């Protein structure tokens, strides 16, 4: 753990300032301020509906925010398509339901974006893809279709698919919550490995073991606000806010 934490640099990867977002008239994100350094690994938790997913999705412009600014890797997220494209090609994202493309093989899933977005030659893209598939330990499944894999394998493919774009930042939105308990572990292992290599990560998850092991910082959100943030040890052992305490008691309860 300490080894991983050492890799945090002073360079800034993401800056979010005074960001607000509404769905219609519903105020989902309120005055979010967050700075993420390069190499930092942040776990976001909080009750359902607190806006965790929305926050993550604002970062790579899957949702528009209405106020405040988001800067990723020095690029300001504006309505300019070029900026959006730039940010998306730097930021990888993994979803709760994997969202693999069922009509393409695993290998095709992984090479699609490099070929069409990065304009990598197919051969090279396939080599890269195989490299990352090996990293997530399923190179032998490359020719299969997503439907033929188990949930855990699918999620690892999803991670590999993001990695193939060589992102500098990875976002995870509850990557393990749709998985059977047996499979959770294999996905978490992959994520830990990634973390140890120093990837900047923002991860929405309720896997507290994971948070303890790899996170530099845990953020607790409620009702669209960041209520508390701290280092994992301090966060779990000594939560400051009442809401955090309540939440932790429920999560760790049964």
């Amino acid at each position, binding site marked *: 753990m300490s080894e991983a934490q050492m890799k945090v640099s002073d360079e800034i990867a993401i800056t979010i300032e005074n960001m607000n977002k509404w769905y219609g008239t519903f105020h989902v994100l309120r005055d979010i301020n967050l700075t993420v350094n390069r190499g930092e690994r942040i776990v976001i938790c909080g009750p359902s509906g607190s806006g965790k997913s929305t926050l993550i*999705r604002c970062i*790579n412009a*899957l949702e528009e925010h209405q106020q405040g600014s988001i800067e990723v890797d020095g690029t300001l997220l504006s309505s300019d398509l070029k900026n959006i*494209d730039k940010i*998306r*090609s730097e*930021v*990888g*994202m993994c*979803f709760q*339901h*994997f*969202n*693999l*493309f*069922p*009509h393409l093989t695993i290998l095709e899933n992984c090479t*699609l*974006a490099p070929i*069409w*977005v990065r*304009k990598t030659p197919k051969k090279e893209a396939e080599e890269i893809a195989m490299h990352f598939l090996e990293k997530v330990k399923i190179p032998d499944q490359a020719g299969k*279709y*997503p*439907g*033929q894999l188990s949930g855990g394998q699918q999620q690892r493919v999803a991670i590999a*698919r*993001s990695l193939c*774009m060589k992102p500098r930042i990875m976002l995870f939105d509850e990557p393990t919550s749709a998985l059977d308990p047996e499979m959770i572990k294999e996905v978490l292992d992959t994520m830990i490995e990634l973390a140890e290599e120093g990837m900047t990560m923002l991860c929405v998850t309720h896997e507290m073991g994971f948070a303890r092991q790899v996170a530099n910082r845990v953020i607790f959100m409620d009702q669209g606000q960041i209520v508390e943030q701290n280092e994992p040890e301090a966060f779990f052992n000594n939560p400051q806010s009442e809401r955090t305490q309540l939440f932790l008691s429920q999560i760790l309860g049964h």
Partner: protein
Amino acid sequence: MSDLHANSVAFVRTETIPESPPPGVASGPIKWMRENLFATPANTLLTLVAIYMIYLILAPTMPWILNGVWNANSLSECREILNGKSGACFAVLSERWPQLLFGFKYPAEYYWRPTLAFVLLFAAVAPVLFFDLPRKLLVMTALYPFIAFWLIWGGTILVPILALVGCGVGYAVYQRFVASNFAAGFFGGIAAAFIVWSLGGAMIPEGASEAAMLQPVPSRDLGGFMLNMMLGVTCVSLSIPIGIALALGRQSSMPIIKWICVVFIEFIRGVPLITLLFVASVMLSYFFPPDSSVDLFLRVVIMITMFSAAYIAEVIRGGLAALPKGQYEAADSLGLDYAQAMRLIILPQALKISIPGIVNVAVGLFKDTTLVSVISMFDLVGMIRGPILASTEWNGVYWELLGFAALLFFVVCYGISQYSQWLERRLATDHR
């Protein structure tokens, strides 16, 4: 907790009880009939009623069909042969066979051309309908329109070759540019194709058609079941790309584009096909420049294509809506742009889901091609109702002709719908 209870609880089985056949499985037809036909008194009654109805239908029709006369030159000759017995006069089918299939004006010596085109049709659609076939066969599908056009209409081979070359060049241009920008590729491809066509069109010598290998046949001379097939196949295949565009437009977040599509779709779906055919036959020619050579066949194709495009758009919209939102988001988050996401991710899946629906629309449309008989085109039904029944020899031969038409449509439509059901089952199990 009582002791007794605790003792009775623990139990371990060490050996496996072997699987054994079910008891008293009386099998055989008697049991089957008892279970499936005479299970209850009400069921027995239903069975008897059904048997009686089958008898009622078969009793008169079977002798009629079995006594059928296949060789005669007119109805009265048939009647002489039958000599008062009940029997069909299928001779009308054998005598008018080519007319039923090709209409009465298609030159008899060229019947092999549409027949060949028809046979090739199977080769062309097979790779589209059955995913397991090698993808290379799609080349045949791509070439088919040009071959079929040349076979059926004849004329100089330069025209289809030019069309093919135009498409080829367009596709090449598209391939060249699409990687950088979809719009550039798409419009560039279309522009390139048009340039080739207009340049080449100027080069085709005047009167090349007259001396051509295949004598030209004007579209007015098409008729019979061939006309139904051609209208069906042409309109459905033309309407799929239009339907896709309409469906995407209707899903669009841009209000003007969305509303154009909505109005078009709802308008077309709101009026009967007949009125659209009236438009084709009595109105549409006013909308073209006077010297344009848009003949009735082409106008009908335009209207039926619009008609089926609207329905196919709705089917595809269903397919698009059935895709989980995550697919769009995943594509976005990988940095694909709209055109790429649609082309690589969304449409391949949505179309696959939509195929059964599209096939259903196609079957419906194929059936509806009979309506062209109302605007005096001589498709199968038009041939029967017009020239054949009106002729002196066959005046009054209804059942054989109508039965034949019904049978022909049934075979085709039932075949297609069986395919679509097979496909639905297959898609349901595909990829787990």
